[in-house]
């Protein structure tokens, strides 16, 4: 297989045709199987470990405690499922984060497959969250399935519309989606501040006299059923299965539908797509809208699944939408990769903070390891040359091994 990766036997072109981001990432996807992302993640963990070491903590013990904090030690005794115990409880919390990260990851991954970099997952997540809160709180009296379905559908729609603004601007006037989605994130951020602040339209009625800038709780009829753990202590809700299902939906849309065919063609080569009779601009809008729907769905499920309410300080602290970028890139924009990367980051997110019980490293310190690892992962994934050189070195080693011993 590695033969196809050697450069074509021709002198380098003076001006090589510009490939799209998706094209470059496709190159990365071909190289290295599962080894490259695993190596990327390990490298990021190792470098962060060095920081931990340099500041006087034992990184190995710290990572051990983080793994426990994430509840991954539950795998050692999987028959103990009662969340009164620490390990199963921590695992449910990790999977709660994983649920969100799968969806915010898909929001980035889907756009990537159309050649677009959606940094706007955070804003789209917010719009879904706000919308679900509004429906969940205000439309009381609906039957439970109807209330849930309506809230979830409108949340996804809100995310889709918010993202479609960027897609529309890209399609019509060529505005770069990175700039527009960054701006839309901050607009959503301030809308959130406005909605929940004292006197804001979504501030809870009971909170108004108390001057608390937090929304009301969603009605019982809009809360998602919990299947593992105590509903009052953030049990794992059925949104987890929705997220898993969305991985299949993502894969099916891309690989088994006309829409996916068009999106991928545009992502790899817009000129060839246009020549094939595909409307490139339409697909920019559609891909962004579908991306936004994933992120909006994430916000909706979070709101109805375990948050139930949201406040100004939550808006200011939230960054799970951004984490989707690292999830998608590490998962190489594939369904299965995104699922696994979401689990990894979900474990990190909970294992370094609320779940962490350690006398090696404090949760307030460890929490920032997630951000560091996130940054390093994104940094390394972006460097395709680095990855390719690792891949080529591997190929050389393999060939030398096949030739019987190292070459001089």
């Amino acid at each position, binding site marked *: 297989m590695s033969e*196809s990766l*050697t*450069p*074509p*036997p*021709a*002198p*380098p072109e*003076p*001006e090589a*045709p510009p490939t799209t981001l998706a*094209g470059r990432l*496709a190159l990365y996807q071909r190289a290295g199987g599962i080894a490259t992302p695993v190596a990327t993640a390990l490298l990021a963990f190792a470098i962060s470990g060095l920081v931990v070491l340099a500041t006087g903590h034992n990184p190995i013990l710290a990572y051990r405690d983080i793994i426990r904090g994430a509840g991954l030690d539950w795998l050692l005794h999987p028959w103990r499922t009662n969340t009164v115990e620490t390990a199963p409880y921590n695992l449910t919390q990790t999977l709660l984060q994983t649920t969100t990260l799968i969806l915010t990851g898909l929001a980035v991954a889907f756009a990537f497959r159309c050649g677009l970099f959606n940094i706007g997952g955070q804003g789209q997540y917010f719009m879904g969250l706000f919308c679900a809160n509004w429906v969940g709180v205000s439309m009381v009296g609906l039957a439970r399935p109807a209330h849930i379905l309506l809230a979830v559908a409108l949340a996804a729609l809100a995310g889709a519309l918010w993202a479609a603004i960027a897609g529309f601007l890209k399609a019509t006037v060529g505005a770069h989606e990175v700039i527009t989605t960054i701006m839309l994130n901050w607009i959503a951020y301030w809308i959130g501040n406005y909605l929940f602040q004292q006197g804001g339209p979504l501030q809870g009625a009971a909170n108004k006299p108390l001057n608390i800038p937090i929304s009301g709780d969603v009605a019982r009829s809009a809360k998602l059923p919990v299947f593992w753990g105590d509903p009052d202590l953030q049990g794992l809700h059925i949104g987890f299965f929705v997220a898993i299902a969305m991985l299949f939906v993502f894969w099916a849309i891309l*690989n*088994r*539908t*006309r*829409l*996916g*065919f068009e999106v*991928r*063609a545009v992502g*790899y*080569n817009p*000129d*060839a*797509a*246009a*020549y*094939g*009779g595909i*409307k490139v601009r339409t697909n920019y809008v559609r891909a962004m809208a579908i991306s936004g729907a994933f992120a909006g769905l994430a916000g909706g499920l979070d709101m109805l699944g375990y948050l139930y309410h949201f406040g100004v300080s939550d808006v200011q602290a939230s960054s799970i939408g951004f984490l989707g970028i690292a999830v998608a890139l590490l998962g190489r924009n594939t369904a299965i990769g995104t699922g696994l990367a979401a689990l990894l980051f979900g474990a990190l997110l909970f294992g370094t903070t609320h779940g962490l019980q350690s006398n090696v490293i404090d949760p307030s310190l460890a929490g920032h390891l997630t951000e560091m690892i996130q940054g390093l992962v994104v940094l390394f994934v972006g460097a395709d040359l680095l990855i390719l050189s690792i891949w080529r070195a591997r190929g050389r080693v393999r060939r030398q091994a096949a030739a019987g011993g190292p070459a001089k």
Partner: protein
Amino acid sequence: MEQATVLEMRGITKRFPGIVANDRVDFDLERGEVHAVLGENGAGKSTLMNILYGLYQADEGEIRVHGQPVSFSSAKDAIASGIGMVHQHFMLIPVMTVAENIVLAIEPTRRGVYFDPESAETRVAYLTRKFNFAIDPREPVENIGVGQEQRVEILKALYRSADILILDEPTAVLTPQEASELFQILRGLTREGMSVIFISHKLNEVLEIADRITVLRRGKKVDTVPREGATEESLARMMVGRDVLLEVEKTPGEAGDVLLEVEDLQVVDDRKLPAVRGVSFNVRAGEIVGVAGVDGNGQSELVEAITGLRRAESGEIKVGGAAIHHGSARKMLDAGVGHIPEDRQRRGLVLEFTIAENAELHDYNRPPASRWGWLFPGKFVEWAERLIAEFDIRGGRPGSKAAVLSGGNQQKLVAAREIARDPKVLIAAQPTRGLDVGAIEYLHRRLVDERDEGRGILLVSLELDEVLSLSDRILVIYEGKIVAEHGPDASEEEIGLEMLGGGRKDAA
């Protein structure tokens, strides 16, 4: 004229992965001469010059400038030794002025700190007067024409006191008038004692301008000959290594109904300048209509307009008698227009897609490939297998990425897809560019066969030989207009002249 050798290259060898681009090439240049380097695309001309200009480093060999051995690790070193290069793609910054472009990296300064644009303009103006270039130093480069841009490039070299000037395919982008003006300039420069290396693959212009001619073939030097005594035939033989050009066996075509009709078509290019200016012609069933012309005379825009990839400003396109208004690419495909595009890698194929996906690039959206929006990958594979068998595509299975195919097999895949859709009209733009002889012969054969099947074929090619050997009717395009129409037996000289804007007569 003083006969001093200003440059010697001995035994230059340069290898790229899998190819020897230059194989022990010797080259020398004398003061005041124009020395042409002639060869086909890929013969190693550009590599040799990039080595001389310090952009590549030779693996073996020696370079002497004015008798001194030199070793260039960058363009900066070459410039310091008095070598200037005008690249095929101009190295100019559109938003900056002519003067800024010329003085870049050796700017005149005021008080040692500030850039001094007035002084730059004065110095450039001095040069333009000295060499009689009509050019305004203060004009931004984006506002001047291609011919003038080339002069700016030459000025860049002169400003750096170059006495050796390398010109890489300088006439490829020029109109005939501009080319003859360029030759005037070059003669003026050599009179001043400059030496010029002129890279080209065009026989006629080499014979016009060069004092000596070095021919390269597949990375090796064939010979260096003086212009006196050289003929187009003798040079062509050296270039390609055989006597005859490709001939295609075919019987005269029998033209049937009109399948494609283009009426007074006007199209603008990416810069909104008119590129196709009132073109009318038709293509009948069972004939190959060739469009001959120099690159950049509106061919690409014409093809894009007919295939729905570019909106026409005005005019009418009829396929099989039915007029198509505001034809999108999809409408044109559905109307029965097949298109082998001029750049198979950029447009004809999605290289990251599998062969099967590329085989269905037009028809993924209808049964049997898909139904109600849902794709059936098995059908993709079936169809790809049929094309692979029928068109003898080698080097990949339906599930392989198109990128792994060789150029010839990629083009076969494109042709297979287009022909197998059973189009009424097939538009083939540069169908054999960059292919090896075997693939060229296959595609030529196939085009003739499809003509005999009763399709109308529009062949747009920059290779006059290809147009002459395949076409039943030949249209000559010049500056966006059809300037002449010929039967299959037209003479190469006559068409060659018309392609350059000479011997004009009204189109039929």
